[in-house]
């Protein structure tokens, strides 16, 4: 029986998969493992820093310096630059914070923070006029973006500032998205908790109404509701909130059922606690986290829904800017002025992406049913 002492060996990289491993040691796989070993950090930094710098330089070049270039060349430069910057920053971040650092998640959170802060403090920013058309009569409409001018992202057909538009548009999108989610969540969670806890006829009735609401084609329900309510920020919020209620009822109910049979609830019952107390004190704290973490994703969906409504012409109306109505207004000029579609479109995309990203992470941590998977 041969016995040998373990020797210090460098592990060969091979994430074991069921596939044949012909790709052992490919760049992506290798760098991850490398990152775990301190001595690889410098190599990571050596690759990451220049890539990030080059990427940012490319973006700046495309966005600011090359004002004469064709839009497509500039856009692809900006795109390539952003990609390079991401890869570079990812490497640097992994070197600094450790290999398990989720750069994408932090960037998503950073974007949300940026968009939320700038929307919240938009009034303090040195932006050109974004809404009051009477003040832009002297402004040339349809200015092309020039990052160094007072209209960094150009102007629209009314001479309104596009940068101001997307920032104030973020305000509408976020207020509507978050507002509707919170409203729908509170309503749906309350109903779902009671239904899931009491069961019986209440549960059956709630289930029936929920089923009926879900059977309604959502966008059509929305169109009809908006037609009834007239388009405004408040009414759009209400309509979207109503739309999310049945989903929240289902989610909360399912989570409530999960917890209602747990010992601590049974114990509280045995101790003679009142239903209200059990629901509020015992069930609610347990149900709230999964419901809220799902809410982050719902915000994203509702931001899209609001934009879709604006796109169909029945959402919040100009001159109040929203991403949806900015895209809709520029749609017919897509060919000549693609940036008017791409800028609000990119904001919409990034925000929804970031919300999904953060929401998924939140759910992975907080939703017990999600964790089971």
């Amino acid at each position, binding site marked *: 029986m041969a016995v040998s002492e373990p020797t210090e060996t460098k592990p060969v990289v091979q994430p074991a998969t069921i596939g044949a491993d012909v790709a052992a040691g490919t760049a992506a796989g290798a760098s991850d493992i490398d990152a775990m070993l301190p001595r690889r950090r410098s190599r990571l930094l050596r690759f990451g820093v220049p890539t990030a710098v080059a990427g940012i330089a490319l973006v700046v070049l495309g966005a600011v310096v090359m004002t004469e270039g064709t839009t497509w060349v500039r856009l692809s430069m900006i795109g390539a630059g952003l990609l390079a910057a991401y890869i570079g920053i990812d490497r640097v971040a992994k070197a600094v914070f450790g290999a398990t650092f989720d750069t994408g998640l932090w960037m998503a959170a950073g974007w949300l923070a940026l968009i939320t802060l700038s929307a919240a403090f938009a009034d303090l920013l040195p932006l050109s006029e974004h809404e*009051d*058309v*009477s003040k*832009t*009569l002297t402004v040339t*409409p*349809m200015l092309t973006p020039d990052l160094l001018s007072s209209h960094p992202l150009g102007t629209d*057909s*009314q*001479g309104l500032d596009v940068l101001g538009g997307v920032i104030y548009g973020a305000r509408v999108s976020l207020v509507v998205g978050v507002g509707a989610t919170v409203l729908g969540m509170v309503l749906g969670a309350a109903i779902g908790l009671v239904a899931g806890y009491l069961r019986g006829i209440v549960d059956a009735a709630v289930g029936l109404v929920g089923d009926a609401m879900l059977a309604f084609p959502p966008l059509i329900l929305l169109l009809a509701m908006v*037609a009834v309510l*007239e*388009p405004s920020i408040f009414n759009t919020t209400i309509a979207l909130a109503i739309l999310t209620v049945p989903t929240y009822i289902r989610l909360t109910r399912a989570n409530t059922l999960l917890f209602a049979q747990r010992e601590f609830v049974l114990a509280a019952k045995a101790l003679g606690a009142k239903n209200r107390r059990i629901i509020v004190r015992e069930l609610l704290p347990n149900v709230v986290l999964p419901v809220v973490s799902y809410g982050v994703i719902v915000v994203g969906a509702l931001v899209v829904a609001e934009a879709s409504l604006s796109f169909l*012409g*029945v959402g919040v*109306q*100009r*001159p109040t800017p929203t991403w949806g109505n900015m895209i*809709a*207004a520029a*749609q*017919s*000029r897509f060919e000549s002025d693609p940036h008017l579609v791409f800028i609000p479109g990119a904001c919409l995309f990034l925000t929804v992406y970031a919300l999904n990203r953060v929401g998924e992470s939140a759910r992975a941590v907080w939703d017990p049913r999600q964790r089971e998977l």
Partner: protein
Amino acid sequence: MKRTRKARLTIATLVGGLLLTACGSSSDDSEEAADNGPAACTEANIGGEASMATLSQAPGLDPVVNPGTGGSGGNEVIALYDTLVRYDQKSDEFVPVVAKSLEPNADSTEWTLKLREEVTFGNGDPLTAQQVRDSFARHQDPDNRSVDYLASLAVTEMDVVDDLTLVFHLDESWARFPTLLANMAGMITNSSVVEQQGENFNTAPTGGGVGPYEVEKFTPGEELVLKAKDDWWGGPVCIQTLRFVTVAGGVQPAYDAFTNGDIQLAFLRGPEVIAQAKEDGAAGFSTVDNAGYTIVLNHENGPTAEPLVRQALAAAMDPEVINERGYGGKGRPSSALIDKDSVLYDGLEGPKADATEAADLVKQAKATGWDGHLDLPCQNSVEANNVCLAMKAQAEAAGMTVKIEPMAPNDFITKVHVDRDFEWAAWSMPLSDADPWLRLSAAVGTDGARNAGGYSNAEMDAALTALRAAPDTAARQGALADVQEVWNETLPALAYGANENYVVVDDSIKGLQESQYSQVYFDTAYIAD
């Protein structure tokens, strides 16, 4: 038969000059167009099919239901019924086609219509004076809700002289009476088919018209397919199948579909897309509606009932600015009633825009107790919204406050036209060169059918009566000058530009003819190889 053929060819060459005005309204390239092949359909060119995009679907195929403008059903019914006479933009004349002639008496109060012998309906019935009389009477029946209902009431009596002769007796002198017979009222329906089909006539009028096509398939909301008659009284019909579709989402998708080759003809409205089409070199027909873009002011109620407020608005609204912001600078801005390129143009000028004066007038109006606020109902389309924003911008720059009330198109019509519950609104008043009186009187004549502002002015009514009776172009120009003068003084509405309609046509399609309201006649059209 031979005579008819000749008549059609005459029309074709006459109107052919309007063919393919690719860039702007110049008609210099008519020769060039004629070089590309025969002017009209011949036996040798029979075959093929064409699709056309319209603005909105035809609400029906019965002329008393159809609104009869090129963008919303006019072309479809013209292919089915043709018109007794056609309007030729270039010569500013009416040309008889289905009719043999249409002649007035000295003061244009009696019009004698003579029909051709050979004209028959799709079911073989001959076209008789009695049929024309019955058909015209359907427009005069209020239950039928014809768009020409009020105009057709100008005819007080119709005398059937013989099988082929009908005399129209009018209540007053109307020099441009043929304009009525060049549109819906001139599309003759076969009374026996109407009776036989009953309610279905609106969707299945087979055999009921004298036009070159019959309905093959009508799927409302989707498409209308027409099939050429193989034994049409007027000779061979070349394009065998015509397909009309409505492209949702406005004219840009329609034009995209045209450039993509989905469709061969498209009705375009809106300066930007038309400018794009012309830049792209797409051939087509252009029709300019004078004062197609106007802002109607409520004369009965609200702040705009005050002349001071109206003057302030007139001074504040600069057509150039609305053009810049609403139409990307591609429109035909003018505050005058008649477009510069119109045959009727004679140096008319509308109210002048002056921002300082506007601010001054607002100040004065406010001094009388007005709070300076105006509500602005607005259709919830991007195009309408842009115009409303330009209006709001200028009004607010003059010191007013404006709240835009967005609403669905139907609600907008309800608010402005039906309920008249508005202060000011963008409301089109397109005046055709053929007879500006017809719509002008409806819009600003006392108790006019489309007089949403409730405007009433004796001088204006007198000027309109003179316009109606004006026998020739010069007389009409003179009458219009009087109208403009009263207009500038009393401001029934504010014009901010002419509206252009453009029917883009694929290069392969030749021999099309055009009439008023951007309607296209397909009878002489053919598809070149």
